[in-house]
């Protein structure tokens, strides 16, 4: 989490791995920064294990369920972490979930699962490319650009099949396994995909020069430009990555629901942003980590599941979630100020 300092080191190559030792050092320092959040998870687990009747909360298959339920939000949030880290925002991810779903499902029958999979990722990346080019090449704020893309993507999704859900055929085993398969009978496929994206984006952000440059851009854009970092290229790539993550999440979503819904994903951008912010990524850019985001997504997942299983009225669930997000971010800001005073 506290690794903005790495961004200050300028370097020549971009995607070259800056060394395992550094990746590990970064992760150790990130883990230390995450201690309060891990403690919060511990407290929540204890709370719900006592609250949910007959100790059903901490059972193995309930926790596996939890991991599966977190996966779509976490994948969206990993992509968004990079975007928010460089001082941007992407509001279009929820709508891209719907577009990627309908595009991939409608490609399934005519073109087969491989083309459908690439099509889903591709359409997500395409919307990302669009966002990235506008963010890098114009002076428009990313909030407005991606708000517009969100509407365009939603309209595009609704244009399919007269806005009705598009069912996935029974025979599409490969596509249906994306959301429903369980490896060795217990490990859900969405969890594996989430871990793959997690490892990839952790290495990308915390283990490569490219990642260091992102911290530099987010910390001080002007300084990064003067240091010779190609800001536009980095920015476009980050948005493309975020769009591709949303594309993958959209296909998992469609697969889990045995159908692509044009109206799917409304408000998903907000849950993903909540996970990123809970995980300690600063909205003003330059500070953040991918492991933090994973922990943030898990906390939201535990709250959703625990409050559901404890039988808390749904109206109260909203209030509790809002309160937790506010408290966590307030604490994070507070702690950071104390730290900077000590320094």
């Amino acid at each position: 989490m506290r690794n903005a300092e790495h961004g200050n080191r300028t370097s020549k190559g971009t995607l070259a791995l800056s060394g395992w030792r550094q990746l590990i050092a970064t992760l150790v320092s990130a883990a230390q920064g995450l201690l309060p959040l891990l403690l919060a998870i511990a407290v929540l687990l204890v709370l719900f294990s006592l609250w949910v009747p007959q100790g059903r909360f901490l059972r193995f298959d309930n926790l596996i369920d939890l991991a599966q339920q977190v996966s779509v939000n976490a994948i969206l949030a990993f992509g968004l972490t990079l975007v928010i880290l460089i001082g941007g925002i992407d509001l279009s991810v929820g709508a891209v979930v719907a577009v990627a779903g309908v595009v991939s499902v409608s490609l399934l029958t005519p073109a087969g699962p491989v083309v459908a999979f690439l099509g889903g990722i591709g359409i997500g990346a395409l919307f990302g490319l669009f966002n990235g080019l506008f963010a890098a090449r114009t002076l428009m704020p990313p909030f407005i650009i991606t708000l517009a893309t969100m509407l365009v993507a939603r309209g595009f999704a609704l244009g399919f099949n007269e806005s009705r859900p598009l069912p996935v055929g029974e025979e599409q085993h490969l596509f249906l396994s994306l959301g429903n398969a369980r490896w060795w009978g217990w490990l859900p496929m969405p969890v594996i995909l989430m871990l793959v994206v997690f490892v990839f984006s952790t290495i990308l952000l915390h283990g490569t020069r490219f990642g260091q440059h992102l911290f530099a851009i987010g910390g001080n854009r002007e300084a990064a430009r003067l240091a010779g970092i190609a800001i536009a290229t980095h920015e476009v790539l980050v948005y493309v990555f975020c769009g591709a993550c949303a594309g993958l999440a959209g296909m998992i979503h469609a697969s889990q629901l045995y159908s692509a819904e044009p109206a799917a994903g409304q408000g998903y951008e907000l849950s993903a942003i909540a996970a990123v912010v809970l995980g300690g990524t600063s909205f003003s850019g330059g500070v953040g980590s991918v492991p933090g985001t994973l922990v943030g997504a898990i906390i939201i997942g535990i709250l959703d599941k625990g409050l559901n299983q404890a039988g808390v009225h749904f109206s109260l669930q909203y209030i509790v979630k809002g309160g937790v997000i506010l408290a966590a971010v307030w604490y994070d800001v507070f702690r950071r100020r104390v730290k900077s005073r000590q320094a």
Partner: protein
Amino acid sequence: MRWYTVGVTAVVLAFWAGCRSTEQPSSDGVRLFGVSFQTMNNPFFVELNEGLKGVIEARGGRLITLDAQWNSLKQKNDVADLLQQNPSAVFINPVNWEGIKGSLLEARRKNVPVIIVDAPVSEPDLVLCQVASDNFEAGRLACESLAKANPRAKIVILHLSVNRACIDRVEGFKAEMAKHPGLKVLDIQEGKGSTEGARPVMRDLLGRFPELDAVFPINDPSALGAISAIEAAGRIGQVTVVTVDGSREGALAIQAGKLHATVAQFPREIGRIAGEKAYDHLEGKPVEKDIKVPVKLITKENVHEILNASKK
């Protein structure tokens, strides 16, 4: 960090306690039921929930009610959360009648009976039974009453096409239309089944079709949205509104002369029947697969029935 050690110890202890308690018999005598609604932002589902809760609590059971907020994935997660708690039965009101399949398969794997309320699903074999209003008949009655009031109506339909119940209503409406050649549908648009969703759509339709003089929004909330758009356009009294639901809000709109007719459903009755079917099944009695709850046309003549019933 000492705090951290305390946290880890607490989690380990909790796990231990969790594992121990699973060895005990699975129930403390109270039967647990769960219900997942597509939305609770509609008095229809609030009443359905009350009917269901009445039956279950009268027999000493406990009901967990969850709101999917029109989000299919949230509904899938909600149902998974319910299934983890070994419920005696789960009631589902699906957001997406295709998308619920994964949840139905999971319930079957865990041997939990599922009763579908209000909106049918595409895989009836996976559920114990479906309890719903006779939606086809409701659409038919709405059209019949419109044809009586305005035999040459130029109609727009505000649909909610992901929802099977609404598809049935529109099919019933169209089936009845075939008997009245004077009626004509100008356009079918998505009204999202809600007041805030229907209002802007209706406003645009009024602008697009000056000849428009009737509208069939598929439920009371979207009818209220349509009425508010008609009022804003200054065309109240010129556009005949017929709908399906029979909520108190709809009845009040009939009394005020803004709504021509609504076909009443009886959500409390649907909830009560669904709850009783669940207990019938648990007691080993056979249960019919498809239960249709009758509907009733409400106009100015009999609107007091709804208003009196909702007062108590």
